[in-house]
């Protein structure tokens, strides 16, 4: 029965395992790969109580009844961990050929992208806990300031940027002798964020590679001091901000991308269009935007549920990504709205051919959700070309949007 509801190919592609169970929690059917999520496989059998093998559902009886009675559309339990596998559970209701209403629980493994994000979070938590313990332990200690000096990297430079003094923390960070560092320009050891360091100025963010070959980012404070011979010096104090940099890059990714499809989002698209406008002013090359709206997406969501809708959007993202060239970007800017930014276009013929390609490849790649559910991809498209159809972001997007709606109306 499950193969009629969701095709094995979809289960494999998106790492989904499924189980069907009845209103009174009796197991009706399950996919073989469900065993990865079960602690005691002996308790996983048809007619067994699903709660004996899938403990996640204990306590959710009330929510499941609400789902069964149509008070909810779906139940989502995110980020569960079992046997070193992270997964989400989505539960919906479905009807069998005999018109019997059942629950279908879909187990989806987390993507590698999410896992690398989680690893970073784990490391950040680990570092923070270490930091909190160290803080608690040393705050009342007589050696407080000495310990700070041992942790904080600092060095002195003269007006020309030559290192005149380094502390122990700095030497142990690089694993170098004092004599090797003194007399050298600081840029031999520290690099600014912008790579270029002027001979006398120190950037507020520095990067350095430690003795283990790991890049570490520092925030620097610069304290000017007068030396004995009345020549001025600077003391540079470096604070390790590597974990902040990691969080910054993760947040930057999250801000610029759509969480469902992993595609760039509206914000990222706008940034890229701005870059293209600036570039085109120099090179006099044109670029184009193609607004893409999926036809009848709302009815897919209404008729088959949000899980099918989500799978469809992911599928579209993959199909469209396979069509565009390196350098072009495809963004998801709203529910079922996608925009392709063609970085530069040689001719309008090239653009026409690409649009025809989108149409033909989409037709050949419907979403095979299940044996009974194959959803064709049909789009309405609208194009705007810089600078002919607009010279700024808004007018380019509006022009493409209007053309897309015009096409949509004609199709309807």
């Amino acid at each position, binding site marked *: 029965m499950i193969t009629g509801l969701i095709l094995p190919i979809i289960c494999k592609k998106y790492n989904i395992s499924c189980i069907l169970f009845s209103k009174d929690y009796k197991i009706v059917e399950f996919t073989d790969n469900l065993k990865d999520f079960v*602690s005691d496989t002996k308790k996983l059998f048809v007619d067994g109580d699903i*709660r004996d093998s899938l*403990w*996640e559902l*204990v*306590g*959710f*009886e*009330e*929510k499941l009844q609400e789902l069964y009675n149509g008070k909810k559309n779906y139940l*989502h*339990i*995110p*980020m*569960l*961990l*079992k046997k070193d596998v*992270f997964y989400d559970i989505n539960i919906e209701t479905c009807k069998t050929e005999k018109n019997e209403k059942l629950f279908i629980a879909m187990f989806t493994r987390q993507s590698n992208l999410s896992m690398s994000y*989680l690893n970073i*979070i*784990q490391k950040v*938590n*680990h570092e*923070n*806990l270490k930091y*909190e*313990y160290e803080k*608690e332990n040393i705050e009342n200690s007589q050696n407080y300031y000495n310990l700070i000096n041992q942790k904080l990297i600092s060095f002195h430079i003269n007006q020309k940027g030559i290192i005149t003094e380094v502390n122990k923390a700095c030497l142990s960070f690089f694993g170098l002798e004092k004599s090797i560092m003194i007399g050298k320009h600081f840029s031999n050891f520290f690099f600014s964020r912008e790579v270029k360091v002027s001979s006398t100025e120190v950037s507020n963010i520095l990067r350095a590679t430690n003795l283990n070959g790991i890049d570490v980012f520092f925030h620097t404070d610069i304290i000017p001091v007068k030396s004995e011979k009345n020549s001025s010096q600077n003391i540079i104090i470096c604070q390790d901000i590597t974990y902040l940099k990691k*969080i910054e890059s993760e947040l930057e990714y999250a801000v610029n991308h759509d969480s469902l499809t992993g595609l760039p989002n509206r914000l990222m698209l706008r940034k890229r269009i701005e870059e293209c406008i600036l570039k085109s002013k120099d090179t006099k090359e044109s670029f184009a935007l193609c607004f893409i709206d999926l036809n009848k997406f709302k009815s897919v969501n209404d008729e088959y549920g949000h899980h099918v809708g989500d799978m469809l959007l992911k599928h579209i993202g993959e199909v469209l990504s396979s069509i565009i060239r390196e350098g072009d970007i495809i963004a998801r800017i709203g529910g079922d709205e996608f925009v392709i930014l063609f970085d530069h276009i040689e001719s309008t013929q090239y653009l026409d051919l690409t649009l025809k390609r989108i149409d033909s490849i989409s037709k050949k790649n419907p979403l095979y959700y299940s044996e009974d559910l194959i959803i064709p991809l049909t789009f309405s498209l609208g194009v705007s070309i810089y600078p002919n159809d607009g010279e700024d972001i808004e007018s380019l997007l509006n022009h493409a949007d209007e053309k897309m709606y015009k096409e949509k109306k004609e199709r309807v």
Partner: protein
Amino acid sequence: MFNYKIVLIGDFGTGKTSLIRRYVDNSFSEEYISSIGVSISKKSLIANINEQKYDSTMMIWDIEGQTDFKPILTHYLNGAKGFVIVADLTREKTIESIKGHIELCQKTIPNLPICIAFNKSDLNHDEIEIENYKNIDSNIVGIFRTSAKDDNCVKELFELLNNEIVKRLVQ
């Protein structure tokens, strides 16, 4: 036979996972691995209510701790029958968070029994009057100084909570 769910809540690094590992597997590791998402453990218990014995199965939800960047997901508390709030005796900040965690529990599912574990009692810490925390909320049924490392008061905490939950389910 009663099958029910409880959730351990607390700031990150307070030892929620260690308490569960001690209670379920009787094991302990010094290594800190920050929990992400949820893992669920199962423990069979016997509750003794008015001299009558009741079998029960406790599903223990170990959810990721609260950090400055990430609050606790209320999703995970749904369907619970009791809570254990975990704080680290050596980190004041985690003790200050107890009140907020209890408020979150009450807001999500009111009037469930709550136990507080002041964990890591094996480490050096400032003396605090843990009994004073009983006044925070009338649903607090037990407060313990626990140590997952030395196996101190771990079993007692879970058994007290089990008795309280089963007592309410019987009624």
